């Protein structure tokens, strides 16, 4: 793959490309399943999930959605994303030539692999992308147990 000269100093580790390839393959299979029997139907909005041992970051692409129209709630390990995408209000006599963008309500629920510290959840909506920072609850974190000699 072609890379720009400066990438030499800050290039992504090779496994990232491998991971991407693996995801693509998985999605390819998932898609063919969904065509066959709806095993995994994609939902709106599309999300990406990033995790580490202290929590998770979820990003969702929600272009043109008003902040007031996004409803986020966290209960235990469950995150719910609710909202509405409002259509443009056309005046009398105005007409559409082309309409590819969709409008309506959306509702997605995710179960995370850990309980979330609900008070510390942060949500930022920037450039039409929602960034949710979900820290793992302290009580949910693994405790280190020191073994004492008898």
């Amino acid at each position, binding site marked *: *793959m*072609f*890379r*720009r000269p400066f*990438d030499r100093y800050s290039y992504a580790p090779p496994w990232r490309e491998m*991971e991407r390839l693996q*995801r693509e393959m998985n999605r390819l299979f998932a898609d063919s399943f969904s065509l066959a029997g709806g095993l995994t*139907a*994609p*939902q*709106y*909005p*599309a*999300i*990406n*999930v*990033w*995790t*580490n041992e202290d929590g*998770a*970051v979820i990003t969702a*692409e*929600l*272009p*043109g*959605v*008003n902040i007031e129209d996004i409803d986020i709630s966290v209960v235990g390990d469950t995150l719910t994303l609710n909202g*509405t*995408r*409002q*259509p*443009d209000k*056309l*005046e009398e*006599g*105005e*007409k*559409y*030539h*082309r*309409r*590819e*963008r*969709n*409008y*309506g*309500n*959306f*509702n997605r629920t995710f179960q995370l692999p850990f309980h979330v510290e609900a008070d510390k959840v942060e949500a930022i*909506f920037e*450039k*039409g*992308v929602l960034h949710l920072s979900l820290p793992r609850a302290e009580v949910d974190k693994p405790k280190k147990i020191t073994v004492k000699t008898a």
Partner: protein
Amino acid sequence: MMTTETKDLQVQEAEKQELATDGAERTRDSKCFVPRVDIYETDEALIAVADMPGVDKDSVEISLEKNVLTINGYVEPAQPDNFNLAYAEYEMGDYQRSFTLSNQIDFEKIEAVVKDGVLRLTLPKVGPAKTRKITVKAA
């Protein structure tokens, strides 16, 4: 609550369409998508609305060559520090789309606004052609 349309957002809305490169290869090492676009007409203008999540006013580029209007949106794929991607449904990348404009558009007065990842282009129509009176001078 919405009264006009309450249908749920459809599946295909979540999927981004990748740009087909017909001959011309891209020099940027990232994916490129075709933004979804609405176009509607008002009395004074054509309004084009494009979904480009991740793009702001500094990362969008609009060019007009002859009568072809091209919109480019540049997105640097970013990832949160110290996190690993666990699950992905969408990819980040640039956006590109071109439109051929008719002569009824006033090219000089095209305006663009970006808000919340949505680009809104106003393409004003040329006013009704003014009849020019040509006075014939006597020789």
